[in-house]
Each structure stands twice: as C-alpha cells, then as structure tokens.
C-alpha cells in the first residue's frame, strides 16, 4: 500500500501524454480482456490506486453505486441471456416467457459487473492523476475550441452540483415531493427542478460567453502559459508504460487473456498462468520505474 502510495503520489501530475496513454491502456485492459481473474486483479489494483490518490472517501460512494448496479446486472443479465450448458433454474413466466438461468450467464454477468467498476475506477483515477489545466492546456495546442468547451464543462459540473442541491431544497420547501411515488411520479416531480437548472444554465452560458469574449478569447493566435515538456521522470514512466502496453497487447494477440463463457466456462489458452506472471512483472517494472524516478520527492519515506 505504501509502495502504491508513493508511486501514485508521484503520478499526481502526470504528463498529459503519459496520462492519455495510461487511460487508453487501462480502458483497453478493462474492455478487451474477458479473463475474470485479470478483471478482478485490475479492479483491486485500481481501487488501491484511487485510495492512494486520496480518493478513499469517494471510493465508498463508488462502491455503493457498484453494489446497486452490480446486483441489477446480476439479476437482469441471466434473465436476458439464456445461453450456457449448466442450467441452474428453469421456469415459464407470463410476459417474460421461458426463463433459463445458467451458471455461464451468471458468470458472464459477474464479469460485466467487474468491467463496469473497472471503467468507473479508471475514469476516477484519470481525474485524480492529472492537472486539468495542464492537460487541457496541452491538448489545446491541437484542438483549441473543443478543449475550451471541455474545460468549461468540467468547471460547470461542480457548479451544477451545487445548483441542483440548492434548487431541490427550494422545490422541497415549495411542497414538491421528490422522494415518494413510482418512477413516473418521481420523474414528473423532477421536471420543475431540471427546468430551473436548465434555464439558469442557459442564462449562465451567455454570461460565460460574454466573459470569454471580454478576455480576448478567439481574437488571435494564442500562447501557452505553461511549458509542458517531458522530463526524465516522464520519459521513464513512458518507457515503463510502453513495456506494460506491449506485454498486455502481446497477451491479447496470443489469446492468453482470452476466456470463454459460452457454451461452457473455460480459459482459451493453456498458457494463461505463465502470461499472468509476465503481466504482473511488467506492472512491477512500471511501478518500480516510477518509484525510482520519483524517489527524491519522498526521500524521507521508508518502506
């Protein structure tokens, strides 16, 4: 844990290029691999990473979301997917028709739950590991208008959250019941609240556009406040990241990360265990590389 903390504390302001590659690799690792052991490992590593970045409190909230949606996926997926050999339960229901719940469909639903949480954690980790202004500044050299829009959107999310809280309080005091009733009643109850927030956002967007214009945005060629060059530290990190990426995609190419759920649960390759050792080693190299290049920052820390 302490090692992770060091590693990710160093990564707190990743070079935007490193951050983007890290994001791409982690998303690929989440979506392209169907081996449940790998997915479970990834979720564990990402959870520790998010916690190490100071996101432990938010992790609790994410965990709640994950459990609720996870239970829903575990219920719905086996009902929809009727594939698989090992039947656990079979019945006929009105409207739904023939229901056939299999071990394979349950296992596949389990993988989907892991993937969902993994994606959420990747996005959370990405948010925690970058300096947003630096990141957008770096991208703005190539796609200026899009980046400004993204930057303002990120900025607005926080303000919207505060606004929604305020408006829901106001509406509750005006007798609007946002908590009881069925889905239709609650959706209808939320309508005034959403309308207020939307109208205010529209009014706010004109003010923001005016502020942007008054600050000279879009009037000429821009310069950039911060030089975002690659340091030795970033290069080392990039090399380690590349090694991990190569190992990862090599595993994909060779099918060592493959796993079949249907018609029966089985790994696609006999060499998966050996590959997992190689995979873990490349991850350790990535961690060690970043630890070494950031050691000066944390010289007082002891493992």
């Amino acid at each position, binding site marked *: 844990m302490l090692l992770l903390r060091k590693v990710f504390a160093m990564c707190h302001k990743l070079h935007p290029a490193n951050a983007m590659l890290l994001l791409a690799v982690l998303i690929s690792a989440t979506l392209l691999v169907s081996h449940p052991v790998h997915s479970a490992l990834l979720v564990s590593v990402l959870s520790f990473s998010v916690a190490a970045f100071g996101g432990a409190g938010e992790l609790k909230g994410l965990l709640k979301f994950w459990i609720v949606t996870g239970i829903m996926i575990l219920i719905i997926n086996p009902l929809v997917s009727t594939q698989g050999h090992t039947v656990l339960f079979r019945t006929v229901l009105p409207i739904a028709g023939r229901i056939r719940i299999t071990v394979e469909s349950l296992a596949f639903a389990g993988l989907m739950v892991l993937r969902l949480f993994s994606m959420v954690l990747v996005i959370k980790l990405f948010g925690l590991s970058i300096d*947003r*202004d630096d990141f957008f*500044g770096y991208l703005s050299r190539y796609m200026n208008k899009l980046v*400004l829009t993204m*930057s*303002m959107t*990120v*900025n607005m999310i*926080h*303000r919207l959250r505060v*606004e929604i809280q*305020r*408006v829901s*309080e*106001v509406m*509750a*005091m*005006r*007798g*609007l*019941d946002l908590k009881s009733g069925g889905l239709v009643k609650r959706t209808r109850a939320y309508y*005034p609240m959403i*309308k*207020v927030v939307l*109208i*205010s956002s529209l*009014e*706010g967007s004109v*003010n*923001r*556009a*005016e*502020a*942007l*214009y*008054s*600050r*000279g*945005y*879009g*009037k*000429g*060629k*821009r*310069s*950039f*406040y*911060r*030089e975002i060059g690659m340091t030795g530290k970033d290069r080392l990190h990039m090399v380690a990241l590349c090694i991990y990426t190569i190992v990862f995609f090599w595993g994909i190419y060779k099918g060592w990360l493959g796993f079949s759920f249907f018609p029966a649960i089985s790994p696609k390759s006999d060499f998966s265990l050996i590959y997992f050792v190689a995979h873990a080693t490349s991850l350790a190299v990535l961690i060690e590389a970043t630890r070494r290049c950031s050691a000066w920052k944390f010289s007082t820390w002891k493992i």
Partner: protein
Amino acid sequence: MEVFNMENLTYHYPNKDRPALSRLDLKIHDGEFLVVAGASGSGKSTLARIISRLAPEFYGGKIEGRVNGTRDIGMVFQDPEKQLVMETVEREVAFPLENRGVERKLMKKQVLEVLSLLGIWHLKDKKTYELSGGEKQKVAIAAALAVRNRFLVLDEPVSQLDPMAADEIMHILKKLNDDLGFTIVLVEQRTEKCLSYADRVVFLDNGEIAFIGKPPEYVKWAGRHDCNFLPPVTELFWRLESNNLPLTVKQGRELINSNYDVAANALGKPFLTAKSKAMTLKKVGFSFGDGTMALSSVTLDVGKGETLGIIGANGAGKSTALRIMAGLLKPSKGKAEAYGAVGYLSQEPNDYLFNDTVYEELLFTQKNFEKIDCDLIEEILCDLDMESKRNINPRDLSGGERQRVALASVLAMKPQILLLDEPTRGLNKGYKMRLAAYLGNLKRKGKTIVLVTHDMEFVAEVCDRAVIMFDGQVAQEGPTSEILSGGLHFTTDINRMFHGMASPLRIEEAEGICVKKGSGGP
C-alpha cells in the same frame, strides 16, 4: 487627457424597438474614477458594455452616434460565479494573456505581479470554484489587470458580496485609481459604498443621462429627485436641510459636532417578549460531511409574531442555522422544532422561477400543497405590487421583481413562519424599503419572520430582535437596538456616525435627536 468619448450615442439591442441608451454624450478622462448610478433597467450595464465594446461587438444590435476609445479595457462582471472559466487561480489570471499571444516569460511575470498587487498570491494554486465570492471577484479583477489594461469597467462587482468582501474590493479599486492612475468606471446602484471614491457620477434614467457631475453636486441633485440613491448618512443631512451634504461617516460626524446638538435618544423601538414560541433550537450542533463543524450547541427561541435577524460574518453558521430551522438539514446534535408551517426564501430568487407567468408560479406552490386559493394569490400579488406583472414570464423581470415573485411563491403556501436568507442581496434602497414595508405587513398579520442578512440597515428597519453568530455559536442575542448600538462592525452607518453621542440606528431616529445649534432646541 481623454481616453473615451461618445457623442450622441443611441443603442438598440437586437430585435428591440426601444433603445437601451438614447442620445448619450460622455467623456472619460485618464485616471478618472467614474460612478454610473441609476435604477434597475436604466441602462447602466448597457453603458458599461458600450464602453468596453462588448456592445455591439458581442451583442450585436444597432448603434448610432460616435464612439472613440484610445485604450484597451478590462471588464469585470456582476456575478463572480459566471465569469471564471479555468480551474486554478493562476491559470485563470493567465487566460487573457494566453488569448493575446503574450510571450511565456512575460506572462509569468505579469501573472505573479498582479497576484501580489491584489494580495491574492496565497490563492495561486486554489481551485476557482472553491473560492469565496469576494475572492472570485478579486481573481476576476486580477485577470482584467494582467493584460495591463489601465482602464477597468466594473458592472456592480460588489452587489453579490457581503459587506466585508465589498469593502475589500472597493479598497482595491481605490488603490488602483489613486496609486497607479487606473481609469475606473464603476456601475453601482448602491452609492453608499463608492460615492466618496468617485471623481464624477453619471446617473442614468430610462437610457438617458439624467445627471453628470461631481459627487457633492450629485447628492444635492439626488436629494431633490430620489433619496433612494443617497447614502444613509447623506440622506439624514438632506432631511435636516443642511447646506453641507457629507459623503462619508467621518464627514457626517464632523458636521454633527460642529453644527448640531444631539439629544440622548431612547433605545429604538420598544420590544415586547412573545408569549408563545414559533420555533426553538435546543443545543443544536451540525457538522458537514467532511467533518467541518458549522454549528455548535446553538440554543435559540423565536417568539410567535416576532421578526428576528441573524447576523454575523461569513462562515459563522447563519445560513446553516436557517436551513436547520427550515428542516432542510438535520441537526447532528440537539433538537430543532417549528410550531407552524415554514416557508423558506433562499438567496437566489432564480431558483424559484420556471413557470411561464408570475401567476402560474404562485399556483404551482399551492398545487403542490393541494390548497388552491385564487383569492390568496390575488391578495399576495396586490400586496407585493405585482398585479401588472401577473402574465409576464418571471425570468423577464428585473432582479428586484424576481425577488418579489420568489417571495410571493413562498407566501402562496400560507406559511406561519417565514425564513429569509439574504433577502436584500442585490436590491437597491427603493426595493429594500418596499420589502421592509411588506414584511411589516406580514408581521401585523401575525407571521413570524427570521432573516439572515449582512444588511444592518435592514435589520434595524425590520427586526425586533437580533442574534449575532460567531464560529457556529450564538455570540449575543437581544432587542435589535441593544445588539446594534455601539457596535464596531455589526451596526448601521448612522449609529457609527453618532458613536459616543447617542445611539440611533435609523435615519428617522437620528433626525429626531438632531437640533441645529442656535435654533433654540426641540
């Protein structure tokens, strides 16, 4: 030297037949501090936009006449929330420099210099959305200064801020003008904060210049036309028919000492203790999710039919206490009880407005409580002087009118207890006095009112009792006259002026105790 000049200017916003500004002639000189005053909708903000070239460059529309400006102009807007676009303070200040393609080395120097100049160096790495309103406004000023504009236009920059933050901003503007020779155009409808700083005042009325001249001439003119645009200290001397009209508390005190005898006054309005309680807080404590303690063992009783003012610095726990009273927050410790229906008016009137007409806005509240009473709606609209606006979209109304619609939508549920959070924020004196009169009416009808405010004049005007909160605790409570009299910060300008002589809080009280020397006494 002239830095801006407009001749016979008329401006129409796009698709508007009526001009926002009409036949304006105005010259602004280098290093001048110009205050633009006027009622809501008089064209003040439009004039600011014309000077800063946002109109017609950004807004479009039709412009006639001549406009000449020799300087680049920095603009600061009213709402600090809606003008910051970057995530950290340092990047926000650098943003206009980046847009102008300034070289990186120079940019760094200019950013750091301006952060130091405004005393916000310590905020450099902070997130812009974590700042207080005053800090946000300072960052906006810093961003306008960073590009070395020596001409600033500010559109009501302090109207959304508490008095302490507003004073800080005004001192910064004064420093920029006095020490560095910046030209400043300040749009403001509450003149008590800025009149003493101004070299000249422009007063707009219906898009036309009704007055232009130096502050001493302005106060005489405003006294004759509309006292709502006079600072309280000046208004007192206008009422006393003094030839000299002071602009500051200090000038007022000197005038009192030299020209008037002051009779000792009885302390304010008589205060009767209410027989029964409308609301109680018993040893209430509250902590936010991150562990920040907002309230600690607050015990407070609110009597039926009384008007209670809760005052205190930012972060003292005033709004949290009000939200607990409203039942929006559950106390972490202790107990909060209300004996009657509670209505709550938040700081932001826009949070209430989404229906197509004012009438529907009131009807919406009644429908939610399943108590439709059209007579009550008519009565509220009549009392708040909103009958003529009943079929207008509330979002098309001015700030003061929106505030009244929000209040009306709360009153439509017929609350016994009315909780108001900063009800005078952004309102000019005229609207404030109308609100005070209306709250007086509600009190006479037996309603209990609790309000949180930074506006000491308003507390003195409407509250029977006041509570000062500090660091999540009740520091002092008692009759308003007792709480505000002799205070250093939590008191009115009138009371400060009479410090050591008498303790009037309101202009009417002060008027009654001042006797011109040699006039033979009251």
